[in-house]
């Protein structure tokens, strides 16, 4: 067998099914890789060697079968995993072991994917660099002095470092796609409601969407099809069949995009993208045109208000969701000396347990929801959300998908955007509109700028996730995949 950690999930699944490699061998190879390189990368907050090997052994005994049986996976630490520590990279949940599995984790277990461990992230998924993790930042395998993106930097970095062939992320404003872009990996945000939120630690409930991270488009599609589908425990779960994303990815890989119309958004032009990002994007567009696609310019006049709308809606929902961390039912409790009141203990617990970005967003959200400001901020943002949705709907009357760079800049050096929080928010300029609309979007590597990966984003209409996989796979077939320097 060639190096098991360098193989794609599809190749590994085939090797395991054909008895060329056992699931235990494959899982062991990745656990050994984690042991060898994770002190440099810090993609993992917790490694579950025993649990992963037990799940792999069950596959080898023939107890579980399926298209990805035996292929190990890393799971973002915001997803509840029964008996396995789950902290959302926050001190307030240090040591918490959930008594239940998220729906997507149940599905991973049922499909025979051994879980290697839990990946690092910005605390409660608030950030674009993992610098807001309470447990230290993850390093980008392309350059250990640079950020791996966020919030799901650990999941994407684990793929780029060959510690895992697949990973789970969650995307509220770009937390799957932007880390994918800056680590040279694939990250897909499914249609909101296409994958279950049950068992995700809630950040912004109207936006949170779990999805697949992988090194190839086909692998992402395979994982997508394992985790997606209706779940009665999530009231915004869509009761419709999952689009054939795997078939679409394989169709796209044939390199034929005849008749496919790609929309470029006029309002995204000149929006502060680095020149290297723009040139990689335009070269990719030319590659797609050679495959038969047609490029059409469309106008989405309200996209310029997406970032402000998001930074009112998401913190508002977060300030409400994070009220549950009160030192009573789980996690940290500080200052309970027998003399202090419940309110004092709550305030001391939350002060000690939350990091600065989480506190900023709780305060911002509380402000936007307070009487006197509600209509001007939260209410207005929800109306703008309607207008952004209409922009998407009218664009999709003319084109099949919209395309853009995933993020305006390549991986930036640590510390370069933490002093001004708004500079960090700009990383999500191109990813946020989709979250407000609810449609699917994928980031696929499309080139390098100054030796660092650039991501190409494909956005599709709601429940047309298959379309984005087709276009992404076609681009991948034209430009290839990108390998970071050896660690």
């Amino acid at each position: 067998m060639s190096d098991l950690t360098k193989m794609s999930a599809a190749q590994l699944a085939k090797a395991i099914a054909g008895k060329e490699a056992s699931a235990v061998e494959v899982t062991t190879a990745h656990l050994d890789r984690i042991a060898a390189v994770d002190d440099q990368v810090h993609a993992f907050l917790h490694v579950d060697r025993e649990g992963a090997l037990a799940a792999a052994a069950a596959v080898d005994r023939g107890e579980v079968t399926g298209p990805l049986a035996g292929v190990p996976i890393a799971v973002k630490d915001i997803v509840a995993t029964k008996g396995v520590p789950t902290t959302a990279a926050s001190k307030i949940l240090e040591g918490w072991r959930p008594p239940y599995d998220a729906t997507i984790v149940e599905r991973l277990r049922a499909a025979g994917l051994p879980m290697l461990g839990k990946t690092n992230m910005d605390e409660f998924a608030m950030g674009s660099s993992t610098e807001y993790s309470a447990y230290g930042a993850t390093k980008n395998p392309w350059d250990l002095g640079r950020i791996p993106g966020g919030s799901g930097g650990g999941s994407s970095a684990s793929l780029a470092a060959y510690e895992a062939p697949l990973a789970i992320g969650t995307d509220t404003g770009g937390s799957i796609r932007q880390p994918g872009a800056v680590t040279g990996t694939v990250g897909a945000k499914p249609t909101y409601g296409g994958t279950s939120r049950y068992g995700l630690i809630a950040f912004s409930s109207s936006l949170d969407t779990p999805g697949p991270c992988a090194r190839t488009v086909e692998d992402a599609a395979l994982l997508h099809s394992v985790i997606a589908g209706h779940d009665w425990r999530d009231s915004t779960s869509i009761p419709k069949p999952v689009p054939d994303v795997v078939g679409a990815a394989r169709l796209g890989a044939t390199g034929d995009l005849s008749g496919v119309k790609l929309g470029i958004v006029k309002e995204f032009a000149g929006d502060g993208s680095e020149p290297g990002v723009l040139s990689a994007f335009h070269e990719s567009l030319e590659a797609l045109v050679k495959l038969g696609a047609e490029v059409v310019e469309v106008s989405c006049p309200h996209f310029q208000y997406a970032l402000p709308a998001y930074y009112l809606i998401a913190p508002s929902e977060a300030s409400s969701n994070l009220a549950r961390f009160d030192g009573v039912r789980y996690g940290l409790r500080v200052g309970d000396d027998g003399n202090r009141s419940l309110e004092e203990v709550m305030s001391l617990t939350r002060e000690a347990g939350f990091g600065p970005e989480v506190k900023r967003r709780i305060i911002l959200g509380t402000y936007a929801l307070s009487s006197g400001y509600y209509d001007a901020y939260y209410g207005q943002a929800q109306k703008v959300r309607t207008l952004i949705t209409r922009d998407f709907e009218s664009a999709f009357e003319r084109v099949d998908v919209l395309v853009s760079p995933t993020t305006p800049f390549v991986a930036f050096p640590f510390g370069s955007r933490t002093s001004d929080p708004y500079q960090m928010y700009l990383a999500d300029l191109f990813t946020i509109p989709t979250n407000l609309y609810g449609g699917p979007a994928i980031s696929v590597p499309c080139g390098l700028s100054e030796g660092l990966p650039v991501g190409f984003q494909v956005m599709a209409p709601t429940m047309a996730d298959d379309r984005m996989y087709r276009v992404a796979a076609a681009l991948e077939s034209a430009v290839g995949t990108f390998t970071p320097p050896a660690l």
Partner: protein
Amino acid sequence: MAAISREEVAHLARLSRLAVTEEELDRFAGQLDVILQSVARIGEVAADDIPPTSHSVPLTNVYRDDVPVPCLTQEEALSGAPDAFEGRFRVPRILDEED
């Protein structure tokens, strides 16, 4: 003009049950002011007659079949609690002793 004052941030922190330090108040007030000035552009959009969108899934009144399914045991539900007593979450006192 500042969009948000230090006193307002202190008030919001208290509402949010965050015992922030004086140093944090100074820092957050400046940072939140920058953020609010940036998002205030949202007011430029003429949207009076536009209905709000709370989320993107057009479902209302979601039901499931009325079939009992297993749930967490009392022990499991209490397993993560910082403090539990006789099968319940134990909390610090809520009322002053003289109340």
